[in-house]
């Protein structure tokens, strides 16, 4: 949650731009190194599973992306709250930047999961409770992005997307529960993080750390892009205003 606290300390985008500029190379380097190390551990150190063989290696990508898929939504929800309640200038930038990344991790979890499912369950997909609720999470991401993209006025789109994100927060646990109840084919949780042998647990945790850093790298980069895009747009608007001969100042982004 490093990025979160930085976001809160920074009241203005300019300081954010300065700080993130310095931070970004380090973050990127660290995430590359850690993910590389995790993959090394996964493929050369961790033993193949006696039951699953080498397919178990998918886990080192699958599980971190599944965690990040959920964490990204939490981040979006917090940002949305920040936008609607505190009107924080960076909140919307953060929410907007996180949505596609969260959706990508969700998709990654879905794809790696189904690739794993083929050898394990003999099919790419089952309508299991956990799978179904991840799919619905993916739909929520799609909804957030579709809603934002279909409204021209950006400030308005930001507010409406935030409302939807918060409604989604109420809904997600309900979906999780209802799907749990409804379904009987539930895959029992393996309790991997605590009980399994450290030869698997350690690479998994390293991989999770690396993926989290990757997420923050991408998120920060996307936020910077978004801020720059808004500045360019404001400059264009100002040009139009000038062409119309107005002396009115342009609202800073």
């Amino acid at each position, binding site marked *: 949650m490093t990025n979160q606290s930085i976001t809160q300390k920074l009241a203005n985008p300019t300081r954010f731009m300065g700080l993130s500029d310095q931070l970004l190379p380090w973050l990127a380097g660290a995430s590359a190194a850690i993910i590389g190390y995790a993959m090394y551990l996964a493929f050369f150190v961790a033993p193949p599973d006696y039951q699953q063989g080498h397919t178990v290696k998918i886990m080192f990508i699958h599980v971190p992306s599944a965690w990040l898929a959920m964490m990204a939504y939490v981040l979006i929800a917090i940002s949305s709250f920040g936008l609607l309640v505190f009107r924080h200038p960076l909140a919307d930038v953060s929410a907007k930047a996180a949505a596609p990344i969260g959706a990508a991790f969700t998709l990654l979890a879905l794809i790696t999961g189904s690739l794993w499912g083929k050898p394990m369950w003999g099919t790419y997909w089952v309508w299991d409770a956990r799978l179904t609720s991840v799919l619905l999470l993916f739909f929520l991401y799609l909804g957030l992005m579709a809603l934002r993209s279909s409204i021209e006025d950006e*400030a308005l789109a930001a507010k409406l997307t935030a409302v939807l994100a918060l409604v989604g927060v109420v809904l997600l646990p309900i979906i999780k529960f209802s799907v749990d109840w409804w379904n009987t084919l539930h895959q029992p949780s393996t309790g991997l993080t605590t009980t399994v042998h450290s030869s698997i647990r350690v690479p998994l945790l390293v991989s999770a750390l690396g993926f989290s850093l990757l997420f923050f790298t991408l998120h920060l980069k996307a936020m910077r892009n978004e801020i720059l895009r808004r500045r360019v747009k404001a400059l264009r608007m100002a040009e139009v205003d000038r062409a119309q001969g107005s002396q009115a100042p342009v609202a800073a982004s």
Partner: protein
Amino acid sequence: MADTLILARGGRTVVDRLSFTVDAGHALVLSGANGAGKTTLIRALAGFLLPVEGQIVLEGGSADRTPAEQCHFVGHQNGMKSSLTVEENLLFWADFLRAPGAGPGVEPPKRVADALTRFDLEPLSDIPAGYLSAGQKRRLGLARLLVAERPVWLLDEPTVSLDTRSAGLLAALVNAHTAAGGIVVAATHLDLGLDRADELRLGPREVAA
């Protein structure tokens, strides 16, 4: 009534540091070129648009209601259902807009009949609103002003599509409202012929034009 307002549309400042007051019993006519921000200002007064800065105060209004709740807003659209008849439309608004604490006063049906007469809509009262011509629709929209009592009238280009006779009717009603101590703010490109009216010219935003 308004204090150093700054209003923005889509990230662009449209109305920049504007202050004005309208006294009870007076009308304010907003004028200015296309795109000057008349509509923007009226919508801000009606509470649809939050000012970036500054505030809007209605002095002497009831304290437990927002300024917007004491305004009649008539914008470009009339808010009438084309499948309801002229009379049904007005009756709905009369019932819906009646202040909750309002005493017996004049009953809605009576008010509606009165509004219909005043706007020459009586012969059309049983016709679905969708069949009206542009000017008839506009008159119906304006008739809403009379079905519930509110101190402030906000009118955005009220005379659009009206023939001269109807425009005259409207001017008379506005004059009557201000004479009774009401406030009217109207955006228009035409001369309405009002008594007790001040004019506020919004700045030339489009210099090229």
